[in-house]
């Protein structure tokens, strides 16, 4: 309506500015009624927009993330899904000193897991420990013996990009009990945690009580499960020259070789059950086999120091150092499926990784054969096979900024 003093034509204004003139925030599309009947705050069309308070803003587009551009490329993606492993499964490394901190003071635990960042990282440094450490999973929880103390580790979910040691140091374990002697090896079997002590004893821990289970003639140093029925125990002292079998109900028996002297390397990577038989190595040229009847040398690799065994992909793998005095020292992985045919030269680690001089531990880990490899004057590496193609090029993982810390063994848990 024209006002009394208005000049020119009578006019009115219309304002559909959100947040002003009682206009609410912009709404959504309404195609249900005629466009002229749509409430002012709704729309006939809203394409590729978003809402931000009183404004209509753009919706972001897509940014190409992979490099391939075709369905047949090696990095083609069609149907992605997110899958996060709920239970941490890690390859634990037990070594001397602490990478980046000290070459030989105390001992450290590190772990590798592609589900964390950094993928390989330090977990704990026991900087004052002097007697070595042993580690095993018990009831799904990592347990560790530091000097004479059995401890339970509470695994942390540290933020992405953070090392466990930076957040927790040695504070994420709980002391459980003091042992009477140094622990050479720990292993879970039959609902118990077996502790093989250096004072010729075998103790068990049931979560509450430490019990002396057996007194041996020599220090037990290694063990493996066999047939889900026996715990097979090895000794590094040549004077022992035997294996001990502990059946699930608690009876012990002894197996001795018909010929030769069996010694077993201390730790968790020197005994394994494969093809229903027990296999052991002991820092020498021999791989021993116990088939339930006979304990004998199954394979000899000349000039080798065989330190580790693992079962993976339904085959037996063994890691060794080859030192024939004339050629440079090299590190190898051998393989046998059934103990009849042997491939000692299955994988030359030194050919892929210059300076690789020893395989301290082998283990099956997340569809890879994992090898803890000592590299001369360099950081110890974790090498992972590309799936079951264990003779091809391995993925190499190393602790950033590490010193050439030695590795004692490798445990997956």
């Amino acid at each position, binding site marked *: 309506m*024209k006002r009394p003093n208005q000049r020119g*034509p009578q*006019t*009115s*204004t*219309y*304002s559909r*500015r*959100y947040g002003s003139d009682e206009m609410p925030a912009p709404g*959504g*599309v*309404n*195609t*249900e009624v005629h*466009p002229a009947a*749509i409430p*002012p705050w709704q*729309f006939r*069309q*809203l394409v*590729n927009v*978003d*809402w931000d308070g*009183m404004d*209509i803003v*753009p919706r*972001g*587009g897509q*940014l190409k*993330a*992979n*490099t*391939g*551009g075709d*369905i*047949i490329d090696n*990095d*083609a*993606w*069609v*149907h*992605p*899904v*997110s*899958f*996060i*492993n*709920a*239970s941490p*499964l890690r390859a634990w490394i037990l070594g001397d000193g602490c990478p980046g901190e000290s070459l030989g003071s105390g001992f450290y635990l590190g772990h590798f897991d592609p589900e964390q*960042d950094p993928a390989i990282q330090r977990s704990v440094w026991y900087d004052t420990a002097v007697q070595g450490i042993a580690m095993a999973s018990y009831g799904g929880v990592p347990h560790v013996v530091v000097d004479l103390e059995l401890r339970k580790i509470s695994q942390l*979910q*540290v933020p*992405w990009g953070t090392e466990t040691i930076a957040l927790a140091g040695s504070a994420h374990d709980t002391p459980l009990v003091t042992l009477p002697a140094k622990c050479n090896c720990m292993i879970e079997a039959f609902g118990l945690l077996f502790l093989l002590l250096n004072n010729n004893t075998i103790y068990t821990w049931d979560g509450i009580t430490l019990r002396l289970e057996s007194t041996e003639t020599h220090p037990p140093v290694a063990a493996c499960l066999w*047939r*889900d*029925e026996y715990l097979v125990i090895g000794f590094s002292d040549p004077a022992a020259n035997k294996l001990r079998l502990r059946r699930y109900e608690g009876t012990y028996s002894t197996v001795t070789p018909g010929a030769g002297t069996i010694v077993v390397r201390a730790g968790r990577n020197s005994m394994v059950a494969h093809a*229903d038989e027990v296999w052991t190595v002991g820092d020498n040229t021999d791989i021993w086999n116990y088939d339930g009847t006979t304990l004998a040398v199954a394979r000899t690799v000349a000039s080798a120091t065989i330190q580790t065994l693992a079962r993976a992909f339904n085959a037996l793998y063994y890691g060794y150092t080859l030192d024939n005095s004339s050629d440079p020292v090299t590190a190898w992985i051998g393989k046998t499926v059934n103990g009849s045919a042997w491939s000692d030269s299955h994988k030359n680690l030194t050919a892929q990784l210059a300076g690789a001089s020893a395989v301290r531990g082998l283990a099956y880990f997340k*569809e890879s054969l994992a090898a803890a490899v000592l590299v001369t004057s360099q950081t110890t590496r974790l090498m992972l096979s*590309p799936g079951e193609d264990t003779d091809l090029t391995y993925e190499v993982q190393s602790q950033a900024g590490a010193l050439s810390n030695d590795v004692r063994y490798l445990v997956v848990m």
Partner: protein
Amino acid sequence: MPNILTVQLPLLGLLGGVVGCTGVLRRYRHGVHTFPVGDLRQIKVPTGTGLVLRRPSWQTYNSLQRSRIYGVGAFSHNILVDENLRCLRQGIPAPTVVPTLAAGAGTGITGACIIYYRFKDTIGQRVGPLSAPSNTVTLANQDRVAGNVPTSCLDPSVDAVQMLVSMAGAAPRVAWERQFGPSSVTDNVATGDLGEAAIDTFREMPLGLWNVIYGDAQWIGGNEQFPERVFRSNLGEPEQFGGLFVQTDGERAVGAFTHNDQLYFGSPKSIYRVTGFEGSDLTREVEKPDIGLVGHFGHVAVHRRVIVVTTVGFQLFDGSWHQLTDDRQSEFVREYKAFRADYEAAQGYYDPIRNVYVFGPVRHTEYPFLWTKWVLDGARLFPELESSDFGKAWATDARFREDATSAVLTLPSGGEPYVVTGGKDGSLREEGYAEDSTDDGDGHDKTWVIEPPTLKPSMTDGGNDSDGAIFHKAWNHMQCAGSPDDHEWTASFRVGTENARVKAEPDFEDVTLADDSEVQDEEPSSNEPHVLEGCAGEALNMVITEPHASANLCRWRGYGGVYGPGIKRRGGPEPGDPG
């Protein structure tokens, strides 16, 4: 770090003269917005299992030391990926050999024995069904000699065999376990020392197209032989099928979702509710007799509610049903009818950062040549989070390129989630990336289209319904960053009858223009009032387009203008024209 499992499909070109058709499952170790080939690891599918061109249905199930994801729908067998990232076929087969049992020379066992074998995957602690039973042998202080012990299995995950013995008709219990090797085993495990019993009989889960986890079990639907059934696994054993299923009233079961400890599954006709766990307390009731589900992949749980795609539109289910598309009801029904296959195959996801629910891609009759997605604002849908009022606000996403599947990725140890989308072209793209103005080269450039309601002024200020009004000016509250010369937005005004919607290529071809409408396309980058040169009509329509709104950081806050009485007759003489 999220493990992304992806399926590459389908063609693996010409290799050695063999035309192969295959797919690949890959795992990715998280990086920062880059997905280099070097970080991809192929996960080999089990021997004999092929991949087919469909979106897989995945369900995660965790218990104790297990952390596994179960996949169906894109594979010739149901599969799983375990905590060691092994891809395995769901269900270990039963041994095909018949065990033989004889009395041994040793001592220890007395009583009637029947033995069975079953395979075991010792890494995953998975076991298969029992073999056929052996002959019966009655022992009198003797030991057992088991023959025909399997020494291999076609399932490569299997590495051991267990012998179970039934003593005097009792349930079979584990007597021993052996890695593959011996073909004959002698034992004298006392009856009291036998291990776990094999109580449930089972076989592998039937093949299906989709799955859900509910009540500690996996449910699989979409079976070709029994399309009306949804099969339930044994409790705590998602791979094992014991024979239990629920079914529709005969229609094809197309999808399912869970809410508040209840399972809902549906056909295109009806929705059914399942409660209970075991066969004894399992009930099935008709939840909605005449409204069905649209596929399986669109239903998304958000904030203890579920956004459900039904045959009459999107609904919010929180124990009660709330229509979400009442402002687009007819449009949904029309589009669902026109592109039913698109809708049943489409996927929904909730983007927690942008707080929107997105469903698509589907074609749309108003946007030919484009793949569209329905976008629902979560801020208003879930008022307890960001606003005080419950409301529903829909928009549409559109691009030429056809997406396949989206996933919300998060780091296992925390971090902001983000959305990636796999394309039918094999490309993985991060969503919501504002800096890429071309939408990764999509021909539609993520073009903005805003069409407010038709403005039909009140004629009490002058004019009348016949003559309408004269629209003198219009302005557009657009804000863009950077130089005005870089802005590309266009505001088109059309004045005419209330049906005089603006024609703007290519999105409005179906609109019939009023003959007497007039159009003014304003130049971009100006928020000054636009003189409309006295366009007359009963209504004003406008459309704003901006092909690179995201790159130009555009924000739009409304529009306005000035109008007066309709002294300019539409199609009639100009003012002052004697006529």
